[in-house]
């Protein structure tokens, strides 16, 4: 990663935000408070019509609330001109968002062009961004969107959103139109980019697994309100309402195991067992459980080449119980 890629994220603050569409008899967003710390990846989760996408779009003023305040990096979004605001905030939507009459390079270059960068700076930035999203510039630069696969289009969409080094990235169901395998790899890419760039990301999805995979924090929404706001593990272990419990299928213990890692279970660890197969400390408990079901009595947890403990069924169950408390 080149050093100037790193543009630390900016915090977001939403206070009592309420939106009502004209002609509707109830609020699409009904007084929401939300704080997103700088550099966090927060996922808004809920079924369609719960207001998650509307809430996201208040941040770049595509939707204007009738009440409440929204701050990006401490500045009220109504204070600046909406076009200037939007050029500073990355925005990714489903694949339809790419302009079909423009090449990949032209699509990616839109915001730098709006910001009147020099042609040389734009050309260099386009190649840099295509590298960043792992599309070989020489091969992809002059292709049209229709010549790309769904996954490739979505990478271009992400590159376009990151073009002007925004400190906040809004992603609205970005991977809804691609198949499951591609979606998983795009999620990995999102996590990689998030770690590398430190951009604050607000991500909207109705896909529970996607939310659990990506989120530092999950905000579950229903009828324009926040139902629960917490870490994935917290929301799964202690669903605040039956709605959250049903939506996340929180009773599924295996689902929770995929959010815990071997290291988390070690506080209950027994002494190392001779001949136990090694697993890295960062491995999920779900994978550890799978190893145990394959026949091992215990696994040896390895960190930095050193065995730091062992795990068997008992420790895994204990870790789940501890997580519920």
């Amino acid at each position, binding site marked *: 990663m080149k050093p100037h890629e790193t543009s630390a994220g900016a915090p977001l603050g939403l206070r009592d935000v309420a939106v009502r569409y004209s002609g509707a008899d109830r609020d699409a967003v009904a007084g929401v408070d939300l704080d997103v710390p700088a550099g966090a990846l927060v996922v808004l989760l809920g079924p369609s019509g719960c207001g998650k996408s509307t809430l996201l779009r208040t941040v770049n003023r595509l939707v204007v609330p009738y009440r409440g305040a929204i701050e990006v990096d401490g500045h009220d979004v109504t204070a600046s001109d909406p076009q200037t605001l939007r050029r500073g905030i990355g925005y990714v*939507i489903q694949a339809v968002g790419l302009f079909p009459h423009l090449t990949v390079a032209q699509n990616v270059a839109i915001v730098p062009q*709006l910001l009147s960068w020099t042609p040389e700076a734009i050309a260099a930035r386009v190649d840099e961004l295509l590298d960043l999203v792992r599309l070989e510039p020489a091969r992809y630069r002059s292709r049209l969107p229709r010549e790309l696969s769904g996954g490739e289009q979505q990478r271009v969409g992400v590159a376009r959103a990151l073009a002007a080094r925004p400190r906040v990235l809004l992603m609205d169901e970005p991977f809804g139109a691609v198949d499951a395998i591609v979606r998983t790899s795009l999620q990995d890419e999102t996590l990689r980019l998030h770690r590398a760039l430190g951009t604050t990301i607000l991500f909207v999805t109705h896909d529970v697994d996607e939310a659990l995979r990506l989120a530092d924090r999950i905000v579950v929404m229903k009828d324009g309100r926040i139902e629960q706001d917490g870490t994935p593990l917290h929301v799964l272990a202690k669903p605040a309402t039956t709605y959250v419990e049903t939506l996340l299928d929180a009773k599924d213990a295996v689902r929770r195991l995929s959010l815990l890692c071997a290291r988390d279970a070690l506080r209950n660890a027994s002494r190392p067992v001779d001949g136990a197969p090694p697993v890295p400390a960062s491995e999920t408990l779900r994978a550890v459980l799978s190893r145990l079901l394959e026949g091992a009595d215990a696994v040896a947890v390895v960190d930095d080449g050193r065995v730091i403990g062992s795990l068997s069924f008992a420790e895994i169950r204990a870790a789940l119980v501890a997580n519920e408390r």
Partner: protein
Amino acid sequence: MDLLIHVRDHLLLAGAALAAALAVAVPIGAALARAGLARSAWLSAIGTARVIPSLAVLALMLPLIGIGFAPAFVALTLLAIPPIAINTDLGLRGVPAAMREAARGLGMSERQIRMRVDWPLALPVVFSGVRIATVEVIASASLAGFIGGGGLGEYIINALAANQMGQLLEGAGSVAVLALLADAILGAIERRLAFTETKPAWART
């Protein structure tokens, strides 16, 4: 040589009428696309106007403008306006709402969205209207001969009067060839237009 002069006059008349129609019809189409409720009323009015035969329009021009190039030019312009206006409306309204929303989200102004998204995406459809209008105008320009507008119509009428079958076929055949040629050339351009654009320097490989 006489035939070539008539072909030239024919094309001049058709070209002038098309240029004038383009200047009038594209703004009309753009206004229609934004018109909301009044739109369907206007579209049916345009549709009704199209039913009036070209020859009747030419005849109606006579008492108003007299004979010669001018009435033929006005009549052909009126003929070419509906297909271009309707396709402009169609093309602009065919731009997906999600595309405009994406453009807005990237920070484009309304003007930038119109110039960089709406018009380029509508262009192939608009151009298809121009192609239809061109073929209609080239064919109908033959009728200008009846009101002294010149062109291949005059050539054909002279042949009829002199009972010159060969000359008649030359003239009629020329009109057909011109119409087919225009359709083929404009059709080829139309296919190339679909979602391509001249590339600025930074986008070239």
